[in-house]
């Protein structure tokens, strides 16, 4: 049954995920070229000074990519489900409703996670090509809230899409935006270092939360 569920989810998101993969690869290539260009037109020691001392972030091109991707994957997975009552049919599979929803979002989160992993690995490689490894590690730590933004956007969009009530949908959208804004407060590198565990804990609350709209959909609409 699990294999069938995963296959169905894959069929729903494969085109969107493939396009997202291309966009992520394209953005990493753009970051690579932008960095290379930077080092061609400016003295290397000055760029290092900007990066280390002036705390200028040279890789913000990928900042909003995870959040955007999370929202798009969720829309591809659950947007069509909400049309014409298809979601009701899905909830009638011979599997416990909550486990079913978790298997869907688990698959979506995993696919988003793969892209986040690609972003992290690409960022580390690009930065370590022109900077010492300390800078690459710092870039990765700086990008962690951006990557967490992907998780938040994915689950936030899922909550809003599965919710049958329009007013509640707006509440979930507002909460998601409030959380995403929380992850966009930094100005320099590693400013989130001391609160990433708390923010991750907060983001994990979205995992059980996603059951509520499905429960409301099943029992009320």
């Amino acid at each position, binding site marked *: 049954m699990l294999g069938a569920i995963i296959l169905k989810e894959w069929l729903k998101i494969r085109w969107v995920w493939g396009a997202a993969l291309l966009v992520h690869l394209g953005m990493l290539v753009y970051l690579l070229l932008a960095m290379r260009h930077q080092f061609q037109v400016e*003295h*290397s*020691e*000055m760029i*290092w*000074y900007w*990066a*280390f*001392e002036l705390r200028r972030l040279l890789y913000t091109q990928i900042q909003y990519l995870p959040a955007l991707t999370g929202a798009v994957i969720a829309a591809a997975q659950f947007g069509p489900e909400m049309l014409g009552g298809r979601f009701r049919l899905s909830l009638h599979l011979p599997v416990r409703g*909550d486990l079913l929803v978790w298997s869907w979002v688990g698959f979506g989160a995993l696919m988003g996670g793969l892209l986040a992993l690609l972003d992290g690995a690409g960022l580390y490689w690009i930065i370590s*090509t*022109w*900077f*010492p490894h*300390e*800078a690459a590690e*710092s870039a990765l730590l700086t990008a962690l809230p951006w990557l967490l933004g992907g998780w938040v956007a994915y689950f936030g969009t899922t909550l809003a899409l599965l919710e049958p009530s329009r007013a*509640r949908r707006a*509440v979930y959208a507002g*909460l998601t935006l*409030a*959380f995403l*804004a*929380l992850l966009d*407060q*930094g100005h*320099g*590198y*590693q*400013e*989130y*270092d*001391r*609160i990433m565990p*708390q923010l991750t804990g*907060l983001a994990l*609350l*979205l*995992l*059980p*939360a*996603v*059951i*509520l709209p499905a*429960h*409301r959909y099943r029992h009320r609409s």
Partner: protein
Amino acid sequence: MTARLARWSLLLLTILLLAIWIPQAKELLFDDRFDKTQLFFSPVIERFVYKELIGEGHQFVYRDQDGTDYDRESFETLIPFIYYKNMELWGRLPLVLGEHRFDKAAIVAERQVMEFKPQDLSDQAPRIQLFPLLESNPGRARLRFPEDIMRAGEQLDFIDSDANRFDPELTRTFTQALEQAGFRFPVRAAFGRVSILKAFDAGYFLLDSRGSLFHLRRLDGAPEVAAVPIPEGIAVRDIKVTENKRHELIGFLLAEDGRLFLMTERDHDLIALDLPGYDPDRMELKILFNPLYRIAVYSDRETIHAVVMDRDYHPIDRYARRMAMARERPVDRVWEMLVPFDLNLHDPDSRYLSLDARFHGLAAAIGVAASLLLALEILRLRGIRPTRARMDLLLVLFAGLYGLLALILIPPERGDET
């Protein structure tokens, strides 16, 4: 069961987000531009004087410690070493104070400001531990950044910035020079001022694995290392290097026990500063130098202190006052009654973001009680008996207005017990 867990996860998330964002919205709506009081010591009347904004717009007062008010120009003439350019413009130079006479050149030669802020502390700001070791004898008018960077770790690594490649020769030369001077690796901390816009380059102070301090410079491409004798009983917490063309002091040294010292440039002697109530983690410190005095001014967001010292840093007089900016505003009082706590994201003393909770104590009882009454009314309107929503009410009891808003946004389902 999972639906209940889901709702409670959402309630918790909602409350925490509200506790972060609503206080920020309040600040956005009601924040005022009251800044810190500017406190000085007047060499003319030998009293502390200050400039303070006490109301909306430009309601500044110019006052001395005895409460005498001055107009702006009179105030500036009380601190002529600060406003020496105005003094010149108003034909008040040379300045005569008792037996002393100061022309513009004499004032300029003695003027200096040294600052030490909480954000200058190494543990209050993230820092990639790579430092450019400038050539201290550049043989030209301006300093410039080297094409390599120093990594102070198990040895003193140098990495070429053009090729992003480890430089074994430079690493060996500098590491050996430090070892020969008695330095024990690994480097515990490196302190320096990374800038080319400074009077000269003083290099770095390096703390070795035993806590001993060394001074490192790059002179004509070669290492120059000197052990810095630290008196018994002083463990270095931080050093702020501030090169200045007066060449008297090289910076601040903060000890682990909170004592603050000035370090002389030539011999690295430490001058203890007697600053009662000074807390380096919360207070901004300025030391103002003029031809007659050294004045230390330090403040958190409530109280400003000043100690005036003679040229040998012996305290002469002290003054402290609660700043106008610390006055409690009615909106703050109402706020503390309205919500039981805030979650602060931005710590003004640190570059790190935080999630510090500030509890409002008993003052919030009014807001919590009102929130509980409103919660009961909401439950009544939704046809839910309070006994079936005990946990929701408990949540409002702990989270006050935030709990009430969460309850409104994510209400319990009719028929479900919370």
